[in-house]
């Protein structure tokens, strides 16, 4: 069964802390994505990656960075967490040639106090 795994389902952090959200996929997909989900705003794209060591900014990259050192792993980094980054974070992947179908992880709910 294909899978996108997000390492942490729930995290609570303090303002100013550095936060790592890890995502691993086992489908050999080239493309990986990080979205945040907020009520009334839907899913907004933070960063995406087409290949190892490649990254592109999405619609809301401010306050975030990413790392893709291996094909299967895509990490989202909050250098200095702030309360407005409290949200649900969703990782997704898809094959290079496939039109559209994303495979999502279960999500990581981050609370910044």
């Amino acid at each position, binding site marked *: 069964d294909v899978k996108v795994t997000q390492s942490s389902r729930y995290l609570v952090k303090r303002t100013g802390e550095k936060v790592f959200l890890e995502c691993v996929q086992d489908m050999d997909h080239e493309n990986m*994505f990080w979205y945040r989900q907020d009520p009334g705003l839907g899913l907004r794209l933070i960063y995406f990656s087409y290949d190892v060591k490649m990254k592109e900014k999405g619609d809301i990259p401010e306050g975030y960075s990413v790392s893709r050192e291996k094909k299967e792993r895509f990490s989202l980094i909050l250098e200095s967490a702030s309360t407005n980054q409290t949200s649900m974070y969703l990782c997704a992947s898809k094959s290079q040639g496939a039109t559209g179908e994303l495979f999502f992880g*279960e999500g990581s709910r981050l609370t910044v106090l």
Partner: protein
Amino acid sequence: AQSVAQPEDQVNVAEGNPLTVKCTYSVSGNPYLFWYVQYPNRGLQFLLKYITGDNLVKGSYGFEAEFNKSQTSFHLKKPSALVSDSALYFCAVEGATNKLIFGTGTLLAVQP
């Protein structure tokens, strides 16, 4: 710029009745359109997609969607709703750069 709109925050329907969840889109060129479903505290699951061809697309769990180019719509439908269909539904359009742009979501509540 590509965008999708889901005009209803919530749709209420009785079990056994037909349901429709609305989506309109704005995109240059041919649209690639998608529906996803999210159950509580879970990630999103793919339901169906329209790329080309027949305007009526069938997907998982008995859902279907109708592509209407003149109305720029891609409404999700099901002939007979189940309580277990209660979830958050997202419409999405694929942009030129291989990214999916999502709508704000519609909460479907099916009453027994």
